[in-house]
């Protein structure tokens, strides 16, 4: 049974927190229990919060363009901590150079390879994120 508990924050040295803040409001509005970690969140803190709250999913925001560097190894840390099956989403402006941002299939490939379940551009709407979570967690719409 999914708990409906979600951990959300902005990873690495990234200080952008408005997107995650907006998302958090939308998720709460949709009935999830959200632990909001703010910005500049190390991988360890995500994992720790997920354990503490028995979370179904970790939503990693990365806005400042170094998301690929910051997200590497997170799935491994989750596995080590016994969160093998936890959902991992990433979203935001994950790539610093435009050439990579324009090459979205490549970004998807890389995040999948890192063990993320989904990765979103910053044009995603909170409603789409809610829908994806509900579907992945088999919660009714």
């Amino acid at each position, binding site marked *: 049974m999914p708990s409906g508990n979600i951990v959300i924050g902005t990873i690495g040295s990234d200080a952008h927190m408005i997107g995650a803040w907006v998302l958090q409001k939308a998720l709460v509005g949709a009935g999830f229990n959200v632990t909001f970690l703010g910005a500049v969140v190390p991988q360890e803190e995500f994992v720790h919060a997920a354990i503490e709250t028995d979370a179904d999913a970790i939503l990693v925001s990365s806005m400042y363009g170094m998301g690929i560097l910051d997200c590497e190894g997170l799935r491994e840390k989750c596995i080590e901590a016994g969160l093998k099956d936890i959902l991992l989403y990433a979203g935001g402006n994950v790539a*610093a150079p435009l050439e990579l941002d324009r090459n979205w299939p490549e970004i998807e490939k890389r995040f999948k390879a890192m063990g993320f379940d989904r990765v979103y551009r910053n044009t995603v709407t909170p409603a789409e994120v809610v829908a994806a979570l509900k579907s992945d967690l088999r919660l009714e719409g």
Partner: protein
Amino acid sequence: MVTGKVTNTRLSDDEFFRIRDEEVLPQWETGKAIRDLDECIAAARELSEGKNHALRFLEAKREGRHILIPQFGRALTEYMIEGIGFVESETAIVPDGAWNLYSDSYTRKQEFAKAAAGIERSRKEGMSMLNGWPIVNFGVEEARRITRASRLPLHFVTCDEDARLASEIALAAGWTANSVTSLQECISHSKTITLEEEIRLMQYDARLAAIYAEKGVPQCPWNTSHLTGYDIAGYHCFVHVTEAVLAAEQGVKCQFLSHGINMNLLQDIAMIRVSEKLCYEYCQRLGYEGVEFIAGVFPFLGAWPPRDDEANAMIAWNAVIPVLGGFPGMILKCQDEAFATPTKEGMARSVRLAKHMLTLMGTQRLPDGEALRTEEAMIELEVRAMLDRCLEIGDGDMAVGLCRGVAAGWVDTMVTPWKHNPGKVLLVRDAENALRYLESGAVPLPAEVREYHRAKIAEREARERRKAGLDMVVQDIQAFSTLP
């Protein structure tokens, strides 16, 4: 908790050089190359010849011209040189331009090892995997290559908390503007640092700039209110004036005021006028003579639309405001804003667009009038209330007062990662898109100002037939980025 140990006092040479040797230069190995400050200053004098930020901007201000300021930052020096050259040759930015060059966010947070990995990774991937140029890792000689590659004054964008080593390298390379910020950095980019510590770090940057200037390399550090992108006009002004005073105490004689704007013509112009006026006034009042301020506009720091056409509208409107306001500095974002750090092509397009706005608008200015005066008066009342309270509870010391103000909860803004911000403020736009306090927390707003904001919000509520609330706040955050 405010310790009271950080006060608004000029660093003595002894202290400065002690900090330099013990705290700053050892941060990374590239600190070694700049050990001899006099040598650095001599080199900077030569390198900055003909492209000095302070001189260029003071002249522009005197003559009523505008300086276009594109931004750029990529992982490798080659990319930097290529991008700078591209924009300077593909547009008419020379001579009335300047560069806003930024480092990556690892550098901004002193994570130089990570930056080093990012450099490697960028080389391997053949593209910039960092969101800026790691100035500390590359060091002064590489920075000088960039100086030589440009015909324009260079500004080094501050680091998140501790910009000292990066500043040292930038100024030693002949870049002629670092940053003198404090509350700005906490609100924008920091999570846990105390304001006292941030002020202490900033005092070093300011003093460094002042030393260069005193030794004949004029400096024009940036005093910015970019903040979260979603802050009220009064808070912007307040940040500028406090930072102006703190930098002035360190001996900084020329400051570029980079105002984050909210995209309301009248309110933004009023804000910048009040800010500039009070920077002069409070510096004078507190005994800092002969400090010059140059007003600039930083393009909207909230969310941008993810399509060229709408981004073009943003770029244009961001140019209208400094021209109609008569402000010399026009910082530029470009069409890539919503997606990734600016490409050289994007910056060139933006420069051309902005340059043509200058051609079209010439010296047209917003004429004075009742509405502008009211807006100015309201902002001024708010900012004076805050500044005077600061000085009062700081016993005349702006640094102490500022720290106490934050701790007491009445220096406050919206949505910041900084955990010491009280966070009781909520802002919405009014019927004319000006920003207003929906909740003002403990901010010491004069009753008149509070009433004014409330009335303005009521106008929008009437027009849209709905109540202002958190939903409206969240919507407003995305007001200019949502495509129809």
